[in-house]
């Protein structure tokens, strides 16, 4: 799977580096001074690299956790995101990462202990308030678990932070670590969905909807809290019936009680990112939809956006109480 691994000299002897290297004995290993030598240069093709991404092992410096955009939360008072990994195993045509990063290589920051320290520090800054930590903004939280050991490292941390919450956001079915870990009441495993017909067209490499529902079912049976992320909403033929079928399949498989929260998000992307992605995929039908530019963001026309959101909101309210439904808006 990984044929080439770049490693920053500084972390060549890090135990996590050794552990990862042992999983890829055939990979060619190259050293670099800083990950930016590989990841940052311009004039790289994200699209071509996506066909054969390399792994970059690095240390992240500076601020490691960041506040999330307002209205992106699911009820918490303090909300942060952090990114131990940049880029994703999957190739979703709507993903902003294609427009944000010059490279599609997986960039893994191995200094988990530093991330953990900042999480603990932030948690203690607001005693009595719930702090949320979202891990899947710049990657899929679980898809590369067998390489990163991310959940394995961070779940125990949250066992000791009962007033803080961790969201693992994923489209994967890589739940082995969760299945062998004692359930934590302050961790939400949030699955993102679009209807199967849409997923097949634009979410390349993502496991089928049915497999993801099956994974959710297993987690729910074990007692993990689940999240449902219907984000982004994609306008399509038979929109209502497709989303109705999707929600029906999910809630047929799961008790409403195992769903901690559901969030709905409209498609929105900074114009600059959108243009970059359009250049990479000039014949992609999704990118040739009826888009509109509002305040520097590309989204569906206001009217369409509200209609899609209202349809889904009403469909979801047939299954979950209003207080568990959240809307992400920009």
């Amino acid at each position: 799977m990984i044929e080439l691994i770049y490693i920053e000299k500084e972390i060549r002897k890090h135990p996590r580096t050794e552990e990862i290297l042992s999983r890829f004995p055939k990979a060619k290993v190259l050293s670099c001074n800083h990950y930016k030598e590989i990841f940052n240069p311009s004039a790289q093709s994200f699209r071509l690299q996506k066909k054969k991404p390399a792994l970059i092992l690095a240390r992240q410096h500076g601020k490691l956790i960041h506040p999330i955009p307002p209205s992106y939360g699911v009820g918490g008072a303090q909300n942060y995101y952090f990114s131990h990994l940049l880029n994703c195993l999957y190739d979703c045509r709507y993903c902003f990462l294609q427009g944000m990063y010059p490279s599609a290589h997986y960039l893994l920051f191995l200094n988990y202990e530093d991330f953990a320290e900042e999480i603990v520090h932030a948690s203690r800054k607001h005693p009595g308030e719930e702090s949320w930590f979202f891990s899947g903004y710049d990657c899929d939280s679980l898809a590369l678990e067998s390489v990163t050991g991310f959940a394995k490292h961070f779940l125990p941390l949250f066992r000791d932070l009962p007033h803080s919450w961790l969201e693992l956001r994923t489209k994967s079915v890589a739940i082995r670590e969760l299945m062998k870990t004692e359930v934590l009441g302050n961790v939400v495993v949030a699955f993102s969905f679009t209807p199967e017909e849409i997923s097949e067209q634009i979410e390349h490499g993502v496991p089928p909807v049915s497999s993801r529902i099956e994974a959710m079912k297993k987690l729910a049976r074990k007692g993990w809290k689940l999240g449902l992320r219907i984000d982004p909403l994609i306008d399509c033929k038979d929109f209502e019936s497709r989303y109705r079928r999707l929600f029906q399949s999910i809630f047929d498989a799961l008790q409403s009680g195992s769903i901690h929260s559901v969030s709905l998000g409209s498609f929105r992307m900074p114009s600059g990112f959108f243009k970059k992605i359009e250049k990479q995929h000039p014949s992609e039908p999704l990118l040739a939809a009826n888009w509109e530019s509002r305040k520097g963001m590309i989204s569906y026309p206001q009217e369409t956006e509200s209609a899609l959101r209202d349809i889904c909101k009403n469909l979801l309210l047939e299954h979950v109480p209003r207080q568990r439904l959240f809307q992400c808006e920009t």
Partner: protein
Amino acid sequence: MNFVIAFQAEAKPIIEALQLSKTDDRLFPCYQNERHRLVISGLGKVRTRKAVEHLLSQGLKKNSCWLNVGIAGHGSLEVGNAFLAAKIQDEVDGGCFFPPLVHPTNLPPSTLISCEQPSTAYLPDCGYDMEGHAFYGALLSETLREFVQVVKIVSDNPKSPINEITPAKATSMIETHVTSVLELTGEMEKSRAEILPSEEVGQIHQSLLRYHHFSVTRSHQLYDLTRHVFAHQIDPRELTDKVRFAKDGRDAITTVENWLKGKRQLR
């Protein structure tokens, strides 16, 4: 596809395999056919950079592919083995390039150190040449990094010294790997074709421009609309009719935009 090669003896197998003809360039010996150009740069950084600039000055297409091929020393590989440069380091200033290795190939990756003078130092897992770094550096702002690659064939190593190399040996070493080299260039060209805008879209767009006067902005808008028509697999003849029967350029854009509105949903 553009080849930059230091010596005639190294270039010979590629010239023959691709049936390239000598051009009448005076600055550098150059060879070409319809799809390939090859320049014999001579030894070292300065001549390599100038050879690249020489080819660039001939007005190449956007995002062209480039390959530097030649012989090199190596600290670990056996003489006669080929490798693809995955890290190209300048021996003098230590600066590195990391060409993204995205094309399917049977050539193993290796570090390559580009020296000022022929080197007899052989670090393990490192190749040694005199051109790779200058070649890559000269193309940084000219094309995508994926489309600049360096292939070397090991001519000397700690067991087999550099002074035993002859032009005939160099030719024979490169000849052994011509198939792998051309497979790689084929893959590079395939990748290039994959990311270039569709020629069909360009042709239809050009044909539409004949019907009315379009300002530069409207011409871009029309290009995007044409691209969208193809993305949604709509018969372009319908688009042609909409444009042809519009009053003027402005009306053509509005008409096509309105017509497309109901056809842009994902299937």
